[in-house]
């Protein structure tokens, strides 16, 4: 049955070469923990991706309840956590996943750095990877405000002060982020929500696509 469906689609769209490109590639011995246990260091990148998928899925479920508005944001998070079935688990996955993704990315970065895997011809992939790192940090920063509790508000005020300290363009950056030159309020929350849920994930998906395309094209770096 499945084969027939596959054949039906393949006849019309010729998906076999596409499928082979995606699924079929070699895993060299030196990156395979089944043969060399120390090769577990090569798992960090994959785990980062895995947690990113968890973040995207749990985030999608969070937006079913979350309201980006200063009157209801905190109430909706409180309700989600205390009243909704498995709400605590979903929010917990998103909260702890945010920390874990940073840890995994840090380890992945160190693995690539200390192995010198970023050297020619993989310079571009390293640059894209560090950009992903920045996007992830920005996601953490903007997501921190969204529950609209005490620590969220005051940490964001500090962040905006730091942004304001940038010479020349500082005040403009601050106004762009918070929606007002002095008030951190309703506009700030909706802007951070938009940045956290639309702008940064879009950038992240594009960068990750490039990251994976390059690793597939070049293959993983050889043993030291």
């Amino acid at each position: 049955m499945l084969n027939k469906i596959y054949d039906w689609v393949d006849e019309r769209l010729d998906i076999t070469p596409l499928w082979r490109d995606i699924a079929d590639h070699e895993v060299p011995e030196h990156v395979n923990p089944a043969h060399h246990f120390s090769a577990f260091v090569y798992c960090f990148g994959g785990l980062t991706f895995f947690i990113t998928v968890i973040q995207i899925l749990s985030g999608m479920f969070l937006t079913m309840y979350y309201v980006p508005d200063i009157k209801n944001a905190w109430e909706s998070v409180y309700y989600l956590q205390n009243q909704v079935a498995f709400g605590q688990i979903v929010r917990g996955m998103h909260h702890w996943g945010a920390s874990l993704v940073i840890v995994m990315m840090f380890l992945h970065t160190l693995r690539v750095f200390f192995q010198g895997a970023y050297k020619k011809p993989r310079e571009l992939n390293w640059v894209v990877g560090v950009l992903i790192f920045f996007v992830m940090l920005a996601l953490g920063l903007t997501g921190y405000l969204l529950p609209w509790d005490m620590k969220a508000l005051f940490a964001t005020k500090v962040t905006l002060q730091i942004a304001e300290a940038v010479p020349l363009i500082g005040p403009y950056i601050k106004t762009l982020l918070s929606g007002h030159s002095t008030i951190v309020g309703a506009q700030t929350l909706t802007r951070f929500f938009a940045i956290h849920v639309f702008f940064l994930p879009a950038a992240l998906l594009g960068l990750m696509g490039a990251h994976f395309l390059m690793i597939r094209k070049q293959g993983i770096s050889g043993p030291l």
Partner: protein
Amino acid sequence: MHRGKGMKFVGDSRVPAERKPNIPKDYSEYPGKTEAFWPNFLLKEWMVGAVFLIGFLSLTIAHQPPLERIADPTDTAYIPLPDWYFLFLYQLLKYSYASGPFTVIGALVIPGLAFGALLLAPFIDLGPERRPSKRPLATGFMLLSIAAVFYLTWESVDHHDWEAAKKQGQIVDVEIDKNSDGYKIAQAQTCTSCHGGELAGGAAAPSLLDSKMSAEEIADVAKNGKGSMPAVFKGSDEELQTLAEFIDGLSE
């Protein structure tokens, strides 16, 4: 591959009519114990992922994600703290050479140099050597940066008053009956101007919602003052009694 004349297509599309076989590549000629990603290696990855997911879900069950009380912009006494992975930057800004008039150094120059160097590492560390021991500068600077990040994070955690932080963010779910006599007396006797309309405390005064004192002690403090609390109560003994019992009732 068949090209040009004689090619057959599916309908009027550009998809060739000739089907290609869906056969995995043969990796037997590859060096060492190379294996195919699909499906052999993916299955192992899947198992690692499953084990990881179980651990992760256990974490989310064991530890509730924190939520403090709803943001109150008027509470100027609140000590802010960013998420843990920004603590090193936050700590850096506390040092005198990186704050005040030098904020640009702490907020922009030092992090900019560090992260800029990280971004451009392949163009700085240009030699062909890959082993860490053969490129001492790259390795050295990275180890130094890691040590600095860990040290700053540690210092930040160490300096933070976690007891006070826990207290200042606590969700207080005490319902105050603002039509009660006790609350009206509290308003009339200016209690609310320092302790706040919700009696949850402010920059100058502690919260009245979790006081450990008895009604008699509260009455005494209201009438005679204590520490930085002035003697504010100017009403009758009956009102004092009502007020003290009202505030004592909040902490139950």
